[in-house]
């Protein structure tokens, strides 16, 4: 004999169903609200910047001495940004990973102090970092330089890399960590050969976050790399960067050429960050082993 469905499974009340649906609606609204500025900013920059970017000269030529003049490109700023961010990563990533590993594997008061300082650092306005490097490096050396700029960017990156690496390494599953211990592996070996590979995609994401943060910074560079209207690879020289170029051209946006240059450079910057993220994801995804169910 078939039972009455409602008698076996008590029906969900209307009020409860309403609350569940309401939450879904609120979540979707929140998502849309979060997406609007993102899409609006990207769309606005894209529409205004794509015309500059479509010309190859934009990437291969330096800007004209007079910002109001048409033509020229942002080669010096592009190369300067890549060079300084690259050096900043070389400085910040090993230190950040080291602090994260220390905090997890050694722990104790020193690790907590280090973690606290890193947290303070992440809250520091980036212009303060710029002034600090100005006072310690630029003044000591007697001139602005790409090196000083890299150092300032490294200080900006450091907390991002450290915090994300620490969070990721903390997620190493305990059975895996115990397995490594039970096999008599040295701690550093377990970290480098077991824990870091497991957390690699998360660590790479953290590094990319740090790079994305540093690559768009203007304030730390104003007092350190200063900017340079000419092309240079020499880290001892003042060096141009995309944010600095955007800043300077945007200040002169009364001139259509300067305005277009600023938008083009802004779009280029966004695309670089986007590209880094894609490459990072591709690299970490490719490393998965055949048949792995991760």
């Amino acid at each position, binding site marked *: 004999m078939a039972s009455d469905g409602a008698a076996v499974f008590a029906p969900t009340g209307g009020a409860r169903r309403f609350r569940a649906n309401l939450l879904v609606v609120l979540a979707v609204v929140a998502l849309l609200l979060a997406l609007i500025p993102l899409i609006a900013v990207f769309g606005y920059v894209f529409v205004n910047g794509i015309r500059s970017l479509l010309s190859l000269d934009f990437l291969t030529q330096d800007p004209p001495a007079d910002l109001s003049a048409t033509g020229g490109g942002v080669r010096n700023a592009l190369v300067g940004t890549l060079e300084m961010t690259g050096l900043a990563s070389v400085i910040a990533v090993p230190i950040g990973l080291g602090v994260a590993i220390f905090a997890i594997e050694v722990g104790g008061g020193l690790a907590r102090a280090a973690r606290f300082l890193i947290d303070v650092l992440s809250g520091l306005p980036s212009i303060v970092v710029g002034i600090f490097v100005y006072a310690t490096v630029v003044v000591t050396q007697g001139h602005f330089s790409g090196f000083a700029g890299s150092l300032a960017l490294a200080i900006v990156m450091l907390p991002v890399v450290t915090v994300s690496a620490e969070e990721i390494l903390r997620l190493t599953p305990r059975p895996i960590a115990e397995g490594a211990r039970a*096999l008599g592996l040295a701690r550093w070996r377990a970290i480098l050969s*077991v824990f870091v590979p497991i957390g690699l995609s998360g660590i790479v994401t953290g590094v990319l976050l740090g790079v994305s943060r540093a690559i768009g910074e203007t304030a730390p560079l104003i007092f350190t790399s200063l900017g340079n209207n000419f092309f240079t690879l020499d880290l001892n020289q003042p060096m141009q960067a995309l944010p600095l170029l955007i800043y300077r051209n945007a200040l002169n946006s009364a001139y259509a050429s300067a305005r277009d240059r600023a938008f083009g450079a802004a779009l280029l910057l966004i695309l670089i960050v986007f590209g880094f993220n894609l490459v990072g994801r591709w690299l970490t995804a490719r490393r998965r082993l055949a*048949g792995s169910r*991760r």
Partner: protein
Amino acid sequence: MTIRSVRQKVTASPAPNEAEAVAIQVPVGEPSASAAGGAALGDVAITVRDLSAWYGARRVIRDVSMDIRSNAITAIIGPSGSGKSTLLRCLDRMHEVVPGARSSGKVAYQGVDIYDPEIEPAAVRRTIGMVFQQPNPFPTMSIYDNVAAPARFNGLVKGKAAQDELVERCLRQAALWDEVRDKLGHGGTSLSGGQQQRLCIARTLALQPKVLLMDEPCSALDPVATLQIEQLMSNLKSEYTIVIVTHNMQQASRVSDITAFFNMGPDRAGYLVELDDTRTLFTNPKNQLTEDYVSGRFG
């Protein structure tokens, strides 16, 4: 003292005689001279004396004294909370890995105190290997590397040819070779649960340990995989001293030569109730508690 020299110290004693595995086949019903901690069988590999262990302020095992025989399978049975796993973890210094965990008393392997401050815990763990309840192959390593890498990291094997040979030998010992020989490059976690557990056994064997501690190695496995692991243990017993913690009394009676029954005391700390050769313990236990437990009246 370097890790290397400690390892030599731990393993310096003469290898246990393989014939001893036979000596412990005591006929059913034969009154055994054994009492907890003093079984008159085979050679003693591990001596435990007055071992207590704590997690923080909570004592989880109390004053355990027992001898573990070489080239035999010792099963540790008992209800939940009786300290079986903790005891096992004290035998290769894995207990102290947990923050706040400590122990007192003595554990000696071949007469060498494994808690001697001069002894490197890592060296103890290489000689006394452990297999866990949940198979835990390294997820980013291939099947091949899961076996070869720990041995390589510990400096036990050098060169491609030696590694190939080691991987094949250990996978054969773990009865896994035929199933994985064509996919050694696949991820360790691509295997089934039972295969993963055998991979973990192979990985431990690659360190050439003398003792295998197995903490409920089959509890996450299906009956077929369980049977495979049990057969594997029987095959390995001629070369290794095996201690297995199990919830499953049938498993203990199937595979082990000696069984130790643990119970949780009134202070909620586990203690050793009775240790005897397996048949005696299951058919003719001396302690009423043991009788009640093996006949399924509690636990």
